[in-house]
């Protein structure tokens, strides 16, 4: 076994590596971007990382930052309560599409409307992965999941949730809203960094959806995985900054 440790962000917690996500999963890429952003902003000691239930729960000891866990969908109110109680903290909520857009949607919507000064990072992999690949609010039309074995029928299950577009509509000025993809790492890191800066400056609600991969539940090989992300997901879910207090949005 090699004794050489691969380079990793300073804010990563080395004893919990290698991490527990499946091979090919996008979570590790999102968390690398977040780790590098925390390092570059030098906020390791003020940051509190809160993770949801679902695959995101595996990140509970991912970072060398104070971290907490809660129930499915409830990361948003936990981080809001924490930030309201101590505004000096930089509160980062990390969740999946089910936690954010379905079971926790009332928290997401109302926190956005109230312009809560927290940063939420939502990983969209078009399914409930931890529970075995069920329909998510973000499942694409026609996409097969365990609870839509014949494909998502938009007449029966509706259309996929376009979260950032919704949040951009309901937030006041000062909010930062973007959609990133794990296929464009540098851009994703820029968006996450701005979402943290926006909280640090006290401007408002900060939200980044990250399009991500789930080969385990998609039942795809590497080529098919990347094709699904870049061809299908990125054409349905437009990547870019939707709302930014930092000037003209990057598309």
């Amino acid at each position, binding site marked *: 076994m090699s004794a050489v440790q691969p380079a990793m962000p300073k804010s990563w917690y080395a004893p919990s590596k290698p991490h527990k996500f499946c091979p090919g999963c996008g979570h590790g890429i999102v968390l690398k971007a977040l780790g590098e952003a925390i390092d570059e902003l030098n906020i390791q000691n003020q940051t509190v990382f809160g993770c949801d239930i679902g695959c995101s729960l595996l990140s509970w000891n991912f970072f060398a930052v*104070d*971290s907490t866990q809660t*129930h499915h969908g409830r990361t948003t*109110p936990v981080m809001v*309560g924490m930030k*309201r*109680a*101590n505004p000096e903290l930089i509160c980062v909520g990390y969740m999946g599409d089910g936690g954010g857009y379905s079971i926790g949607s009332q928290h997401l919507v109302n926190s956005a409307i109230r312009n809560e000064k927290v940063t939420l990072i939502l990983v969209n992999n078009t399914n409930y992965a931890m529970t075995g690949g069920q329909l998510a609010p973000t499942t694409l039309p026609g996409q097969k999941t365990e609870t839509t074995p014949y494909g998502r029928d938009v007449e029966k299950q509706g259309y996929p949730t376009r979260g950032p577009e919704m949040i951009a509509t309901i937030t006041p000025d000062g909010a930062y809203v973007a959609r990133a993809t794990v296929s464009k790492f540098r851009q994703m890191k820029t968006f996450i960094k701005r979402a943290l800066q926006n909280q640090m400056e006290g401007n408002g609600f900060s939200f980044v959806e990250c399009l991500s991969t789930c080969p385990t539940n998609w039942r795809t090989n590497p080529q098919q995985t990347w094709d699904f992300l870049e061809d299908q997901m990125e054409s349905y879910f437009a990547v870019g900054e939707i709302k930014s207090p930092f000037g003209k949005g990057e598309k």
Partner: protein
Amino acid sequence: MEKPITGTMKAFMTGNEIVAWAALAAQADIMFGYPITPQNEIMHYWTRLAPKYKREFLQTEDEISAGFTVCGAVQAGRKAFTATAGPGNVLMQEPFGMAEAMRLPIVAVIQQRGGPSSGTVVYSQQEVTLTTYGGNGEGHRIVYSTSTHQEIFDYVIKAFNTAWKYRFPTFVMGDGYQAKMREPLEIYDPEERGLAIEPARPLVGLPGSIGVDREPAHLCNIYSLEEELYEVVLELDRAYQEIAPQVVEYEEKMCDDAEIIVLSHGVVSRAADDAVKTLREKGINAGYFRHITLRPFPAQQLRDAIKKSGARKILVAESSYGQLMRLVRQEIYGETVEICGLLKPGVGIVDHDIFDKVKELL
């Protein structure tokens, strides 16, 4: 900063108003709430008083959020609380369960209303089971049940101290009658009375530099293995059993020679107290036993009262259909005393109800 209360002041207040004053006196920093009757005026008074003393409030989108924001706030090291009732208490069982699992020092005031479901907005004692053993856990909570307005003030202050001292979620259970009724009491600054205020301590956002002089805090709330969770639950129980003798509270009167012990909690205890006095005046040896803590339950104290009195019967009087009675049965299992009930779900109980029932039983 000026103290909300200096010295001792005579007051004539509703129970809900008292909760707000007591939370101020207990140095609570922030309340998260969602409207539901009969607790609304706790928020109304808090939102009027809090800004004067640099305290905070957030009206959340629902009770689930109110409970979870409290869970977040206490992790940040601030004294946070909420108040609810009935269906709101049902929704809050989710965050209360998390507080139980992670030993978060949350405080919640429960002003019971009628149930099941939306029930009534008026009064009940039907949230005993929910508040003591709600959720998918083992009931590692501290639950006080008040019976006078003075006690509402005293026990709300005590609840914050208990929660932060022992780190178990702590509840003060009242009801719609206590919430809305006005009564004289004394309000005071606890520190001037020599009552120490337990300091709040953060669980995250700790001082120091990670990797230099401290490790990161990793608070876990879901476990990979059955055995891991088993250890966690056993440790919770060990800690709970250890502190239980210091927390448990009850009130006992005239049990030494009682043929029958009237058992009650909360506002019904006032009727029980009056009824027992009248029974004694009529030459009937009745005794009075009240649970101030429903969790932990004063089981040994009740067993002792039964033993020394030689009572043949217990009468459980409550405004629910046996929620206290079930607790009593499980806690004093093995005693041969007959357990009878005056069970009136969602309806008030007055002294002559108890008086008549005792006469019928003896």
